[in-house]
Every structure is written in C-alpha cells, then in structure tokens.
C-alpha cells in the first residue's frame, strides 16, 4: 500500500489544475461552483459552451479506449481529474450522463455504427443525453416498466411515460428501456433504445423540486419513433443492457466527488468560524465526524480502485453509494445547524444559498441510483449472501 501519487500522476494533476486555472476565466468565470446539485438550471447554455471547451481540450472520455477518441487513462488519473475539477470549482457537468453512462454502455455493447454515430458528439461536448428508466410504476422495481415499443416500417415506435428524467429538457437523446414483447413481465421482453428527443412524439414536462428548481422531468412518448438500428443489444436483452449501464454509475465519476464534498465542508467550517457556531462543542464534534468520514470515503474509494483486476465488487465497493449518500444528507443538516437562524434567510448570499440547496437536494441523494433501502438489500443479498427478497410473479 502506497498512498502517495507517482511523480507522473502529480505532473498530470498539475496539468489539469493549470488548464482549469487558465480556462475557467472570462465568460466562464461566472460558472465557478455553479450548476451543481439543486442548481442545475443555472447557466444552461454557458455550461454547454463550457462542455465544448472541455471537449476541445480532450478532457471528456478520459478513460475511453483511444480507438474511440478517448485517452485510455487509468482510474487513478480519472480520479485526479475529477478532484482537480471540483477543487477549481468546475461547474456541474451538463454532459455527464452521456460521458459516464451512455458511452461506456456503447463501448461495451454497442454496434460499430452506434459507436461511430454517438461517441464523437459526446466526446466533443456537443450532444446531450438523459436516462429514461423510471416510470410512475417502476422505480426501485425497475423491471416493472410498461412503456411499449413496437417495430414497424423500419422504426421503433414508443408509447408510455417516463418520470424523474434528469435533464431531459436539455437532452438531444434519451436511452430508454421499454417493453417490446406484448404480455411479457419483469426482466423478460425488454428493449434498450436510443431515442431522439426533438420530435413531435416526445413531450417533456418539468417537475419542480423541493429546491424550487427543475432538474428532472416527466417524459411522454406518444407514437415517438427511432430508427430500427438504435437498439443496444437484441430485443429481449434490454434488462441486461440496462444493468450494464447502471454498473458504470459507480465508476470513476464518483471518485472525485470527495473533493466537491470537501469544498462544501470547508465552506461550512468557514461559516462556523465566522458566526461562532464553531465554538459549540456539539457542532465541533459533528464537523470533526464529517471530516473523518469524508477521509474514510476517499480511502474506501482507493481500496476499490486497488482491486481493479477483480471482476466482482469487494465488500468495500458495495458500501460506497449508501455511505456517501447518507454522509451528504447529514452534511446538509449540519450546514443548517451551523447557519443557525440565518438558515431561514432564503438565498441571502451565495454561501447561504449553496448550503440551503445542499440541504434540500441531498434528500434526493439517498433516493436516486438505488435508494438506501435498495442499497441495503443489495449489500445483504450480494455481499453477505442473505436470502433474496420475495418478489411478485409479475415483476423481475
């Protein structure tokens, strides 16, 4: 075990930091620390311009194979990039769904034509994606999706409703799981389709969240179409492909998030020093505990990385989602307690505003990407080998 970075890694870190310092200026200066959780509707067009700038400089697709325009960088380098990005206050990534979910799925399971069509525009920061999984009756029980897809005249035709679709209003394309075999239930009979958003058959309706902003949407398909070749895998493989995509959710993108969390904690410490809350022994204990657990989160991620050759997750890999989500939610509560009565002054200043949004948005952290309860089921069943939950026949 050696927790130091190599000189080559440090040089890469300096390169990233230098590039960010030179580029997060001028028109992009205003984007610093913006567009994060609870703030996704800040500067949408400017953040897309920023994505293009990232793409031009080769900072998108760091881990992809070179054949697909990536740089084939190991996870450690990807983590370093994400850490420096957060440290510099890089804005919330408008393109992260395409880069971290769609692209790895296509690289692993897509056709050559799909890779050629879609990867370059993700890599250049010019095309945006959203994830069409959840439905009103298919949340944790994702296999219960009811959106229908039929192949007709060389096109897939979709009817149904998706919900909680993040950034659908900014997206050019959606990846959607739908039911192509009439009468099938659960994990059988599903397709995984790539669907263009800009068409008459697709309606996007924003949903206002408790933060007051609208990060997610309802998406209606009413005879929406996509070309027959825009299927990943074969008809009936939809579940398998959908799960492959989810496995990328716990990849490198979360490795740098501790740096974003550290920024938030540093901001809370600043407030505590300023307003005297930091002299309250109970608050000091909670801040110190938050710090301790953040350090653990990072080490835990490094342990997961250390095992990059393993094909199954080690136990430490299984805890990361529930650990960071719960930690972040607690941090939001701590932030409000540190603000004290100022917590009630809505958006009084940029710091208060960021902490309020952190407090509110972090309630979602323990819900999306597998709720805490679902995470506990996964840990118990897959890591600890305990019996599986009873399931209705109608579902997966």
């Amino acid at each position, binding site marked *: 075990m050696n927790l130091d970075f190599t000189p080559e890694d440090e040089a890469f870190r300096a390169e990233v930091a230098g590039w960010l310092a030179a580029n997060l200026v001028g028109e992009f200066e205003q984007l610093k620390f913006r567009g994060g959780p609870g703030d996704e509707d800040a500067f949408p067009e400017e953040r897309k311009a920023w994505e293009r700038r990232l793409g031009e400089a080769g900072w998108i697709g760091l881990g992809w194979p070179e054949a697909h325009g990536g740089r084939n960088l190991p996870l450690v380098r990807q983590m370093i990039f994400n850490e420096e990005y957060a440290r510099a206050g890089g804005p919330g990534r408008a393109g992260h769904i395409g880069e971290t979910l769609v692209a790895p799925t296509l690289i692993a399971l897509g056709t050559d034509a799909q890779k050629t069509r879609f990867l370059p525009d993700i890599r250049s920061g010019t095309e945006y994606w959203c994830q069409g999984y959840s439905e009103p009756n298919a949340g944790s029980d994702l296999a219960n999706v009811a959106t229908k897809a039929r192949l007709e005249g060389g096109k897939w035709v979709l009817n149904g409703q998706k919900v909680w679709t993040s950034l659908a209003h900014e997206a050019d394309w959606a990846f959607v799981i739908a039911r192509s075999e009439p009468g099938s239930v659960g994990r059988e009979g599903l397709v995984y389709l790539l669907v263009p958003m800009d068409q008459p058959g697709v309606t996007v309706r924003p949903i206002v969240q408790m933060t007051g902003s609208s990060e997610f949407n309802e998406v209606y398909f009413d005879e929406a179409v996509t070309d027959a070749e825009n299927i990943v895998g074969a008809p009936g493989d939809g579940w398998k492909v959908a799960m492959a995509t989810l496995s990328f959710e716990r990849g490198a993108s979360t490795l740098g998030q501790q740096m974003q969390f550290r920024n938030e904690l540093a901001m809370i410490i600043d407030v505590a020093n300023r307003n005297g809350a930091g002299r309250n022994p109970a608050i000091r204990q909670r801040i110190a505990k938050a710090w301790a657990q953040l350090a653990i989160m990072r*080490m835990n991620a490094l342990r997961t990385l250390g095992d990059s050759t393993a094909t199954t997750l080690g136990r430490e890999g299984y805890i990361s989602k529930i650990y960071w989500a719960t930690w972040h939610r607690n941090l939001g509560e701590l932030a409000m307690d540190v603000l004290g009565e100022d917590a009630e002054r809505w958006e009084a200043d940029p710091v208060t505003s960021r902490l309020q949004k952190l407090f509110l948005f972090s309630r979602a952290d323990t819900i999306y990407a597998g709720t805490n309860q679902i995470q506990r089921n996964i840990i*118990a069943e897959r890591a600890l080998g305990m019996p599986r939950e009873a399931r209705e026949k109608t579902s997966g």
Partner: protein
Amino acid sequence: MDASFTEDQEMIREAAATYLRDWSDRGGFRKQVDASALDYGSVWQEFGIELGFAGLTIPEVQGGSGLGDLARALVMEEMGRVLFTSPYFASCVLAGDVLAAVGGSDAEGLLAKIASGERTATVCSLTSGSVRSGEITGVARNVVDGGTADLILVIGGDSLHMVDASKAGVIRSVFRTMDLTRPQADIKFAAAPAELVASGAGLSEVYALSEARSAIALAAEQAGGAGAMLDATVAYALERKQFGRLIGSFQAVKHRSADMMVLVEAARSAAYQAAALAHGPELFAQAAIAKSECSDAYFAVAGHAIQMHGGVGVTWEYDMHFHFKRARAGMGLLGSPEVWRERLAGCIGLEGTAA
C-alpha cells in the same frame, strides 16, 4: 497510488490468522477468562516468542522484524476478531511505541527485551505522587496488564522511568475488569527503584506521537472485532428460523446486517489509511479519524450483534457480550471518540476550542 497490500503484508496477516484461529479453537479467550487469573504463559511463548510476533514492528537492530504499522494493523485486526488475550497490546504497542518514540540507547535496550518477548512491559502515569532520582512513590490507576507486566514504564511530564515490577516497593492490585479480555491493575509505588530512560522538555510531545500510533493499532483491533461480530450475526441469521423461515430473510434483519457491514468496511478503511500514514505529517488527524470511527463502529456493531441474536445474545455462553465489553473498554483507552474528534477539530481549520 496503490491501496492494496503487499505480499509480505498478506503473508503476515495470514500467519497471524492461522495461529489465532487455532488458538481460538483450543479454547481461546474463554480459557483465559474462566481461569481465576489470566495466564499469558503458553500463548506468549508460542505467539510472541516462537512465532516472533513480539518483535513485529521493532527495528531489526533491536532484534525485531522491522515491519511497518500497516502490517501491525493487519495483525491487530486478526487479534481483534478472536479477542486475543496476550501481552502484545500493552507490551509491544503501548510500551514499544513509547520507547521507539523516545529513542536513545536505554530505550533501545528495553525495546530489544520486548522484541524478544522475554520480558513484557506496560505504560502508566502517576495520578498522584512523585518521581525522585532513582525512586518512585505514588499511585497509577487502570494500568493495562499492570498485574502481569515485567517492566513498568512510568511517563511523567519531562521524564521516562522504568520500574522492574519484581522489585520491592511495587504493590500491584489487580481488579476485575468489566472487559475480561484486557485486564488492568492499580499500582502503588512505595519508594520503588526506578531507572531513568529519558528526560527532557519535549517528552510530552513525544508521548503524544506514540499515543497516536498506538491508537491506530487499537483502532485496527476494533475493526477486527466489529468484523467478527458481523460474520457471527450473518451466520446466525442464516441458521436460526422463526415464523417458518430464516430470520436472515426478514428485511429488518438484512438491513441491519447491511448497516453493520457499512460500519465494518468504513472502520477497516479508516484503520488501514491511518496505519499507512502513521509516519507522516497526518499522524494526528489520521489517528483521530481511525480511533474515533473504529471505536464508534465496534461499539455499534457489537450492540447490533446482541440484538440480532435475541435471547442468546445476552447470555454468557455466546461471545457477543465479550466483544461488547471490549468495545466499551476500548472507547475509553487512549482517548475517547469525543476527545479525538476535538483534537481533529483543531487540525481542520476550525478555530478556537470548544466553548
């Protein structure tokens, strides 16, 4: 950047685990606590002396193996799993770390004795009394292994003395501890002969360093105890039936087991990281992180383990209460979670002190 263990570290862990499993199968800590007084004799002969674990982290020039704190953390983790009762913690960790931090030829001579396992040691400070040239008069309370250690290191503000426990003027009263797996004693020194090992104004900082290192080792032991409690709970949940099904199929039981695993893996990450960084500038912060989080995790997991076992969980026959008691005792040893968190608060930019 590589957070995996070296082959040497894995080997030393496996060697310790093999011995400790066998020790456990031969009666383990139960044999010790059932006896009227702990008898470390045979276990120390085998583990400390013959297998050489007494010298694990002590430099080779003093007869040890010179392995690092991470190897020690792995060994301590394995010890924690089986509630190993031995002089290792007091002698090689507490006393060994003080001597290593203090340095000098007298300290090195004592380290060599500890490394061979021939003599065992412990550390205390006086709650009242005084050290005069050549002799000590006073009282030390709650000394770990105070009833069995051959050598007693007495730390004072600007001095370190060694008292040979066999000498006249050393009166040890062993009391029954709630945690039966780690005995303590009060020691009365009545003009006991004392050798000066080191002196100087900077000693209290040196003690703080060695305490932090020892706290990391203890944290690793706590992570091991927590891991054992998780495993015992899952095993029980997969064998005990109620309402016609395994209790492990109830979601309430599964979810609490999952929460236990989260605590265990986080504790292991904390202990490994702290051990890996124990000789760097982050020592204090890392000790704070590891000792506070591992103490909390062990106590919580041991408590959950009792609950998940139902009635048998509160019986003497099952092991859970021994872990629960050791978890409670370990919280207070070498600084409580609250104490360490307050220290950490001072390292992370939080101004002032608690009002």
